[in-house]
């Protein structure tokens, strides 16, 4: 190692913008990010194409080009949720959290930065993947489906799907912060997203079905579905209502996680 003398550094300052930059570096410098995002893209495009290839002409013009396949959307949410969980629980498992909180002792900045990154990337990757899936799959259904690939309504449907994925990711981040264990956090996300839906949807009591609409997986359907009477009958909300229910689901765990993180020992 070289001699003791080292040049001194320019003045340093801890700001949210700096922490965001740091979290961006951390996000992309870990192999699990690449794997998960790769899986997300593959799943969305794959299931999109499969769904298009099986669409039959008898359904006619009710099929729109931008119909994000529920399958791709469902798995997409889960995959991005897994990534969001890893982003925070990976820190606890490896002990990295100590380094991160020495650098940003207020703690809220770190969490806010992670949430922003996870939401934005979730939205962007989903949006682009669905768009690619749609463009590639269009030839298979062009003869009978409505072309709304480039219309404002169509874009809004896809953007809504991206938004749904982003919000589920933020919720997963919050759950991961509270629970601190990756396996457990993913388990909880799975229970909330799939099992609770099945529980409440499977029971033939009306108010239970209404609950389904208010669960996170249920609420975000309304973000990407175009409004119609048919939707209202199956408890898919309007965009506005879907948005604020989903925002609650996303931010309540996150805020709870922030409070707990702030108060606790590491």
């Amino acid at each position, binding site marked *: 190692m070289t001699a003791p003398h080292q040049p001194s550094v320019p003045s340093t300052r801890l700001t949210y913008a700096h922490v965001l930059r740091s979290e961006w570096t951390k996000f992309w410098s870990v192999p*699990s990010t690449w794997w998960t995002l790769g899986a997300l893209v593959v799943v969305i495009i794959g*299931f999109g194409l*499969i*769904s298009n*290839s*099986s669409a039959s002409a008898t359904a006619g013009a009710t099929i729109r080009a931008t119909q994000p*396949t*529920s*399958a791709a959307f*469902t*798995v997409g949410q*889960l995959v991005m949720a*897994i990534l969001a*969980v*890893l982003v925070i*629980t*990976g820190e606890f*498992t490896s002990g990295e959290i100590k380094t991160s909180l020495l650098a940003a002792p207020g703690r809220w900045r770190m969490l806010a930065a992670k949430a922003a990154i996870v939401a934005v990337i979730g939205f962007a990757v989903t949006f682009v993947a669905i768009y690619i899936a749609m463009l590639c799959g269009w030839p298979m259904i062009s003869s009978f489906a409505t072309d709304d690939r480039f219309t404002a309504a169509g874009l809004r449907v896809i953007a809504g799907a991206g938004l749904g994925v982003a919000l589920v990711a933020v919720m997963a981040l919050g759950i991961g912060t509270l629970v601190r*264990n*990756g*396996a*457990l*956090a*993913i*388990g909880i996300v*799975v*229970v909330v997203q*799939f*099992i*609770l839906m*099945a*529980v409440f949807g*499977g*029971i*033939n*009591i009306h108010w*239970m079905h209404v609950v389904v609409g208010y669960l996170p997986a249920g609420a975000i359907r309304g973000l990407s579905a175009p409004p119609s009477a048919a939707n209202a009958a199956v408890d898919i909300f309007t965009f506005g209502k879907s948005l604020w229910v989903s925002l609650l689901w996303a931010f309540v765990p996150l805020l709870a996680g922030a409070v707990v993180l702030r108060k606790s020992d590491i």
Partner: protein
Amino acid sequence: MSQEPRLTFGRTLGIGMALAAGTKPTPPVPTYATDVDQPGMLLGQVVIAILAVLMVTGEYTSGEIRTSLLAVPPRWPVAAAKTAIAVATAFVVTVVPGYVVTLCGWPLQRKFAVDDRFTGTGVRVIAGAGLAVALVACMAIGIGMLVRSGAASIAVIVLVTIVVPNILTSVPVHWLDTVGGYLIGNSIQGLMAVPAQIDPTQGVFTFGKALWISALWAVVPLAAGLAVLRRRDA
């Protein structure tokens, strides 16, 4: 480790009760008293899978694995012990609340359900559920040993047992449906199906077929995980 089985127990019980209360008969298929509540089962599977995965991956995270493998050089007894515990827990935690729910839910169901609470078939349905979750636990241990990361293992298990079957049913492609039946999430249905539900065309296999497909799903990852455990550096 002692806390979680109690929680699983309670949860499965609670959900089972809720479902028994809400189940309505759908003619022409009669409901059976022992009809296992699906979401409760799913929940049980997820919780047991998490426990099983953490039993293995928790050792890797803390580095405890080195101590365990130093103490037992042949290595396989470590895996065998964990598998035994996971399987036993899975079975008990599924069967006991399952039976309790059946008995407690009976008064609510007696008007329309067939009483098979104490018949051979009925007992087999509930034991089959226990077996199903035990096999999932085996698979989870195997995947935990292969993958070594808790979060990744659960992700794989959840995708295979819940998500993919879910998707395949929603995508109306025939050959995918058939494939879907062979995934563990669906193949275990045959283990706990009441006789009337058995319908190979819908993916609910007979007990025998369900057993060997599910057993493959459980044993292959376990064997692979064991092989990896013996070979790899800790």
